[in-house]
């Protein structure tokens, strides 16, 4: 059913990713699909690394760890964004297109009271579900 599963990962909040990562691994085994972790970084030094190269090393290490834990192969795709704070949704959508993913599994927070009034500025998961051509599995 699915060939390529994209999992956007935020290395600065890796602790909140477990459920999405477990889900993607189970789906990958079920459908015999490939998994690619997408990470977005800025060129300037940040919490994910001092430069894009180092960020990619960290992303690879994280992917290797998860691959070992789940017994699947995991590829990585690092995106260098000019302005991650503003362009994250666009950058993720472009990356999902670029790797040709047909399913996106991504973590999102549980909607609270404010989300009822905050439709104009949806969460990243919301933006992905609205605009992506691939299927989107938002994990809460």
């Amino acid at each position, binding site marked *: 059913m699915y060939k390529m599963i994209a999992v956007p990962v935020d290395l600065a909040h890796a602790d909140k990713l477990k459920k999405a990562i477990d889900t993607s691994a189970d789906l990958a085994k079920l459908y015999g699909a490939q998994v690619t972790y997408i990470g977005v970084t800025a060129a300037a030094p*940040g919490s994910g690394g*001092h430069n894009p190269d180092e960020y990619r090393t960290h992303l690879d290490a994280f992917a290797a760890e998860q691959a070992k834990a789940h017994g699947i192969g995991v590829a990585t795709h690092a995106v*260098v964004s*000019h302005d991650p*704070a*503003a362009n994250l949704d666009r950058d993720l959508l472009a990356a999902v297109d670029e790797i040709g993913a047909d399913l996106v599994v991504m973590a999102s927070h549980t909607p609270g009271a404010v989300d009822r009034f905050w439709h104009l500025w949806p969460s990243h998961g919301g933006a992905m579900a609205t605009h992506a051509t691939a299927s989107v599995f938002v994990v809460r």
Partner: protein
Amino acid sequence: MSDDTLSTGLPQPEGPANLIETDYEVGQDNIETSLGPFGLDIHNPVFVISGLSVVAFVVLTLAFQNQVDPLFNGLRGWLTSTLDWFFLAAANIFVLLCLVLIVTPLGKVRLGGRDATPDYTYMGWFAMLFAAGMGIGLMYFGVSEPISHFTSSLGGTAVENGVRTDWAPLGGAAGDEQAAANLGMAATIFHWGLHPWAIYAIVALSLALFSYNKGLPLTIRSVFYPIFGDRIWGWTGHVIDILAVFATLFGLATSLGFGASQASAGLEFLYGLPNTDTFQVILILAITAVALMSVVAGLDAGVKRLSEINMVLAMLLLAFVIIVGPTLAIITGFFTNLGVYLADLPALSMPFGREDANFSQGWTAFYWAWWISWSPFVGMFIARVSRGRTVREFIICVLLIPSAVCVLWMTAFGGTAIHQIVNDGFQGVADAGQDFKLFVMLSQYPLAAVTSFVAIVLVIVFFVTSSDSGSLVIDTITAGGKVDAPLPQRVFWCTFEGLVAIALLLGGGLGALQAMAVSTGFPFTIVLLLACFAIVKGLMDEPRD
């Protein structure tokens, strides 16, 4: 596990060998929290102290206007008249260092590592650095400053009790219109050419080098690593960063306040719109609202696109003036002015033994302090968009090309206005108020309604891009150098800047706080001199091929 073919578009900086060894992690002093629906990721204590001290300064200025105004204006005046030699000498050092870097092998170092590729095309890059650097200034001073220097030069020198009381540059050019025109243009280009751009280049280069090549956070304190070491993560660094936020926020807010009253005066002159406080507040709100949309759209869809639109509009206006104005005089004037600028440069930039104290202190030292107080903002923004360029390419594009464009711009606008006075006998521009000179000059040519409208649009969009890029810079500094801090923080700073401008416009105090912002040029001159040392030291360690 990584699949290289999937990791396209990734610049490859040089290996970690050149990173500065420090235990500091970007964002380690940050507080991550949320306020209602908004996530926050702010540096402790830079964010809080900057924000609160800005509020305190605004409140104190509004409450004690009669005391604050003479205090800050006196401070600014004292600095530029007593330490004029310091500002002039420092600016000369910046220009010389930039020129040296172009010709030495250090120019081969690439920002972001040996194999980094540029983040932006030449067109987008140049548009952004020009819009941030001096867009608005060229609109306001392009006609008025050449006329000022031309008029004072023509008036010649006047001496009272052994002190010169005139404002002419150098020895003036009493009664000689051609010589006065040349001197007026040379003096103007001096204030808008190599020196201001060298000031920006030094700040931008040092930030880009220590951030992209050495792995330190993109914030002003990082430049001091070679001097202070790990102490920059403590209060030494906090003070530097807070001072940068202070200079940037007050510089932007006061120029937004003054800009609104100038634009409002222009709109009254052109279209008879009411030049009232209410209208000026509406202008500030409108500029801030557009800036907010641009902030939310992000760097590429917001400030880059607006800068490109503005560059095209500015080039069209420039081409129009060249074509319908005295075309031949402008074209020959470009080369003449470039020549007189270079010929007068040693005398104009001489820090010691100046007889034209009014000019060298009141104009030059004031300008240098002003450019330097802007430099944390403009320099940091230029650094943000310059990754992937070599040092040589960077300096040619940040120093030489903008300087050449300024020569052309000043020749076309100022030269045309002088031409109207000298050749056409039209005194309108000389008689008009400071805010209207550009429009009076344009009124002498066809399609004045269209060109004046374009000029107004340019001024307003330049304010929007400054407000947007300023929020970006302040947000990055107050987030400890993180460029991916939550967007609502940028929205906060952009709104805050608009509110400070409105409070000062209505309550008075724009002049006082602008004088205070310009005064920060003094500590930042010391900062920049140390940055020169840091740049050379930092570049020596980088691979060059």
